[in-house]
């Protein structure tokens, strides 16, 4: 139409149309956003840089997964990032004691978005057999987790299956979802689950059913 910028601003009708277009393109999927999502997700899922956080025997299986026989480089994880600043996937391989909880959280906070987390093995996912005074009962109490890999420890095939699941999850992401990268803390104390749920976590299970807690 060849309108000057001042004229466009002055004209309420054109202004509304412009608003509508902007709103539509950001909040609802359309041809442009889905094509862009496809491209971006395709690139992201095929070049995931893992940040291995190995604390126990799961780390041995992780090393086997990274080594030549299983070779996660086939899935785009060519570069193991030992710095959180250049990593996409946090792989927690092993048990996490409470003393390590703030360290884990700090490393997660240091990773730039977009980032994902794989909780590898029974201990990282639920505390495993370590239902005792010193162990975090699942890292999802302190940080968000995308994929849980069961096993004690999981075989490399299991971890690769978890990585494939994560890639599927990334395929389905869209930037029109505003809550996608939102991390919802419960309260100000840094928990990722409500306190009642954290308390429940180890209640009926474990090898210490007879234990009573004094507080």
């Amino acid at each position, binding site marked *: 139409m060849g309108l000057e910028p001042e004229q466009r601003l002055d004209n309420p009708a054109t202004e509304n149309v412009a608003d509508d277009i902007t709103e539509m393109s950001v909040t609802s999927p359309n041809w442009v956003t889905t094509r862009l999502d496809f491209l971006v997700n395709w690139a992201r899922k095929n070049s995931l840089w893992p940040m291995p956080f190995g604390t126990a025997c799961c780390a041995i299986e992780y090393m086997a997964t990274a080594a030549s026989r299983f070779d996660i480089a086939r899935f785009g994880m060519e570069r193991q990032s030992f710095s959180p600043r250049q990593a996409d996937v946090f792989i927690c391989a092993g048990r996490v004691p*409470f*003393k390590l*909880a*703030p*360290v884990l*959280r*700090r490393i997660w906070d240091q990773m730039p978005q977009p980032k994902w987390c794989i909780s590898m093995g029974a201990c990282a996912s639920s505390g495993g057999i370590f*239902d*005792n*005074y*010193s162990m*975090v*009962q699942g890292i999802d*109490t*302190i940080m968000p987790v995308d994929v849980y890999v069961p096993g004690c420890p999981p075989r490399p095939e299991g971890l690769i299956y978890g990585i494939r699941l994560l890639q599927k999850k990334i395929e389905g992401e869209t930037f029109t979802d505003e809550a996608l990268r939102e991390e919802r803390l419960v309260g100000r*104390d*840094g*928990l990722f689950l409500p*306190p*009642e749920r*954290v*308390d429940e*976590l*180890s209640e009926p299970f474990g090898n*210490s059913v007879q*234990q*009573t*807690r*004094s*507080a």
Partner: protein
Amino acid sequence: MTVSALREAFGSAIVRHAVICGDTIVWVSRDRIHDALAWLQATPDQDYNYLTDITAVEYRDTERPLEIVWQLRSLARKVDLRVKVALDKRAPLEVPTCWDLWKGADWLEREVYDMFGVTFTGHPDLRRILMWETYAEGYPLRKDFPLRGHFSRAEQTRQALAANPEANYSLEELSIAEAYHELPKEMRERLRHGERGFLK
């Protein structure tokens, strides 16, 4: 023979001894334990120059005293000796440090303090080593400590997240003067006065 030589030197301070599975165990009274350890280290015939481990044992029988265990070895003579002190649990749990005899006792004594709450008097830097500095639930390896700890899971997680990861180390271990101001106040005091402290 070590035990007869010990009895000769310390008399009634050697409470009793036993040989179990080929290991010689000597119970010493608490008042003379430091002298006995120093004697075992310095006497040429004994020459126990290597401190293998320090640990503690609490028995299920609540009346039975808590035992502190020193496992000694003479590298030259290739013999081991286990020295024990029985501590009445109703009294404060205190034994003198042997850090002045074997420097390696430093972390071993800290571990016994952390897990059992035994105070080693004269230790230069007695603070928790496995659990974090602000850990408030007590001493985990004591028999009256519940396996899952005293606090609820949510409270434990909350306290753990609130801890400062850098506050677990002494100034020598950190060698960063800036972190000094983030340490708990009580720990700052101790570091300033102890052998390890060098900040004024």
